[in-house]
């Protein structure tokens, strides 16, 4: 039986107030819902990463990434993870919910992050 703890997380974003609910599960995937869009992160994903990904998702233009001098010289120290973004009720008939799979690269030394869509499908969920 899944033990689900719900808590409110304050994410400071440069635009309108949003309703945020977070479900954290012991050593399991992390589901965060912002403005009706559900984000599923791999277990162990840091809060910092979650903030950055969601911020970037809603505000892709606001992409002022700063690269440290080490990264400028030597390239990034890339870590990769998978993130799923579900838009519920994207279609009126079943399957209704759009599930997008992203490959996300982040640099362990600086602000660099980049997401690549791997594929998408409609799922039966709502």
């Amino acid at each position: 039986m899944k033990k689900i703890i719900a808590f409110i997380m304050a994410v400071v974003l440069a635009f309108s107030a949003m309703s945020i609910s977070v479900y954290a599960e012991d050593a399991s995937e992390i589901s965060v819902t912002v403005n009706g869009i559900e984000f599923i992160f791999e277990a162990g994903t840091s809060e910092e990463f979650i903030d950055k990904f969601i911020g970037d998702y809603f505000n892709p233009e606001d992409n002022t990434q700063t690269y440290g001098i080490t990264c400028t010289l030597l390239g990034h120290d890339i870590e990769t993870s998978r993130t799923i973004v579900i838009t519920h009720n994207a279609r009126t008939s079943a399957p209704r919910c759009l599930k997008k799979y992203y490959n996300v690269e982040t640099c362990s030394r600086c602000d660099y992050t980049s997401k690549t869509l791997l594929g998408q499908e409609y799922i039966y969920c709502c």
Partner: protein
Amino acid sequence: MGNINENIHGNQSLRDKLSAIILLETAKLYEEIDCDLVDECIDFLMELEGRKRLGKKEIRRRIGKIPFRENILKFNEAARRKVKAKRIAIVAAIMAIIMAIIGVMSIASEDIFGDLLAKFGKQFVEQLDTEAVKYGGVVMYNADETRDYDTIEELLKTEKIDMLYPSWLPEGVEIEFASHTVEFEQIVCTICCNDTKFFITMYPQKALNDEIKTNLCIKINDLEIYYFSENGVTQGNFVYKNNLYSVTADSPDNLFKIIENLKEIN
């Protein structure tokens, strides 16, 4: 977070190197600039930056196409002065050139910086020496690590993933990546292509919901495929051996042909 084969999914590094080659070459005297090299690198860079993801075969082909001559690092006195004059520009530009020199040095002379190059130049060598890089294969991803395989069959067999896989895909579309992950106790297997319009997922031990059965239905190889097609997206759902499949394509015709040619391991 897992590590990944950076050659395939970390194109940022490849982009950095291409920018560095362009900067380094254009820092030379006008008449000494190798225009073919610059042109090719710019074209390649623009495609990498573009919306369409390049397949591994295409990346490999493009790297092979870069008309390298061995003297990228040969600056004469006048060119050196030109580089010096550029100092007025921005510090960042100089940084990029230093980065380029470190990168290019790694193929030019491996002894100069010894360990430093061994550590930092490795990526560059790997990306430009086609023999050292595994291209044309499929990458397996799960939350812990990634592994490279030459073919999807080999991947599915070795990773013990009992999943149907496509033996036919439209021209130019190739399988790039497969994954086996767990989402809240549900296993999800995916097969991703270089074109995101094509995608296959499999949810083991999952049934087709009755509401899905209100979609259009077509019988292919004795399987009842429930599909819909709208806004350029065609998706078919079916159950095979108690596993739920979802196949996404760009048109009904291609969807049906992909499903018709799905194969099973063994």
